[in-house]
């Protein structure tokens, strides 16, 4: 690693520190290059190669993996994934915003506890929690058994293994990621501004749209990104809640790699996924700060 000058006034700071820098930063740098950068470049390379006979790839250049994406079946899967990710984000936002607002009105100690209660389930395996819902919602599950016994319905209502169930699972698994940044933004809200708006005669609705909403936009953007991107690739949620009926982009990539052993095709889908993510992030950096996402 070559050393450059920070500022002209600080040249002494770095001189003779090459060894230190190498010892401190070198190991991580090497790690990230070997296990992150090179593998990602390899995936991009694979997406332009022909598939091997027994999985793997052949070193023959082709654009076929990308032209195959125009296949309507694949196009449909990609579109469905984006639509699902969109609705997941919208629903998460709609249920989390009022909730975060209520939380922000609680007093300090109580509020901390309530936020902790939102984070606590992170320590409990997501799949186990989703399975809990599946036990409640499935045909022979708690709700249907209960309603059948009461005689409200004569046939179980099919709730599991539908697109709706996948959406439900996504919202369930991801909405805490919306609550946390929203809560951050909303608790920073200066209440005197709201008062001022009221004093100046603004109605509650226009105060919300003209004062509160613009001030909490950073939280809304950060939360939306944190819900939207994971919902594009969470294949296990589609598997567990949607059964085989909800194939999403994540499932498609997984199956191309694991079942069909068509690496180049899976790699091409991944490149599309990366490009789409980068596009979304690019839009985000126009309005928000990347640091807020961590």
């Amino acid at each position: 690693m070559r050393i450059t000058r920070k500022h002209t006034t600080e040249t002494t700071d770095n001189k003779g520190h090459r060894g230190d820098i190498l010892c401190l930063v070198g190991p991580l740098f090497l790690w990230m290059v070997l296990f992150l950068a090179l593998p990602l470049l390899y995936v991009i390379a694979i997406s332009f190669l022909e598939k091997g006979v027994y999985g793997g790839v052949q070193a023959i250049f082709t654009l076929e993996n990308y032209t195959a994406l125009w296949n309507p079946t694949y196009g449909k899967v990609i579109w469905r994934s984006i639509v699902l990710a969109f609705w997941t984000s919208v629903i998460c936002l709609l249920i989390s915003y009022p909730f975060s607002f209520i939380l922000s009105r609680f007093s300090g100690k109580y509020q901390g506890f309530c936020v902790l209660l939102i984070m606590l389930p992170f320590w409990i395996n997501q799949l186990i929690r989703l399975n809990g819902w599946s036990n409640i919602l499935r045909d022979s599950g708690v709700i249907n058994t209960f309603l059948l016994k009461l005689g409200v319905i004569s046939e179980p209502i099919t709730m599991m293994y539908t697109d709706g169930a996948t959406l439900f699972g996504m919202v369930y698994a991801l909405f805490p990621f919306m609550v946390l940044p929203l809560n951050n933004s909303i608790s920073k809200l200066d209440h005197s501004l709201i008062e001022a708006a009221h004093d100046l005669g603004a109605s509650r609705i226009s105060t919300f749209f003209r004062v509160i909403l613009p001030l909490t936009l950073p939280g809304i953007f950060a939360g939306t990104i944190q819900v939207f991107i994971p919902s594009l690739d969470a294949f296990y949620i589609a598997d567990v809640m949607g059964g085989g009926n909800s194939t999403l982009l994540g499932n498609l990539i997984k199956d191309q790699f694991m079942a069909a052993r068509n690496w180049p095709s899976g790699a091409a889908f991944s490149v599309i996924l990366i490009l789409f993510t980068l596009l979304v992030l690019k839009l985000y950096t126009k309005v928000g700060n990347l640091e807020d996402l961590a």
Partner: protein
Amino acid sequence: MKRKEEKKLGAFSYFYAGAIYLFLYLPIFMVVGYSFNTNDNNLVFKGFTLHWYGAMFQDRSLMSSLLLTLELALVSTIISVVLGTLAAIGMHRYDFRLKKTLDNMLYVPIVIPELVIGIASLATFTTLNITLSFWTLVIAHVTFCVPFVIITLRARIAGFDKSIEEAAMDLGANQFRTLRRVTIPMLMPGIISGALLSITLSLDDVIISYFVTGAGDTTLPIKVYGMARGKISTEVYALFTLMIIVTVLIYLLSAAVRSAAAKRQR
């Protein structure tokens, strides 16, 4: 004014917040309930039993999964913390040409879908003829945990008083001694929260582990993923209930230690 605002919280607000928590916790209550149920068919609660907690320890494959998951979280967290702490200190102290590159590489695992990292690792390991094993899991887990460790540490380092390190050196401590006796102790709270975050991420990871897990070894989340589409055995519910209890106990313990420490300072 703030008081007046608080008073405005009506019954509906409490009802709404309650509904959100119910939505979040209902499936967890189900899991806990099932784990004490004599009825293995687990839909109707027949009676209370601790049978599954005994059976759980007899289940060899479940126990080896648990052990593997814990070992994996521990080993990858130790590596992440060591690599991450050294790099965070280096990046704070010095400027070097590839700093921006490193910074960008660290953002990749945070923003890019996990799936992509999973398949990239799988493709690379397979092409290089590296057999998927515990160590491929460790490599993949460190790669996605390390950025979170660094981000956590950065917040801590930002408010760092350089003069304390300089004082140590002026008093004759060498570089290594300063690092060990001054810098690292000052960073400790950040290191601990980074490590906790890394453990959490590693313990719960499904997507990346799915791609780099070896034939014999499966982590607990992957085992559950395999079962989740069909029926999950009641022993698994018992195991997770136990893990919930342990988590809550650890939290209460750390809260107690913190409040005791705060009292002593006062």
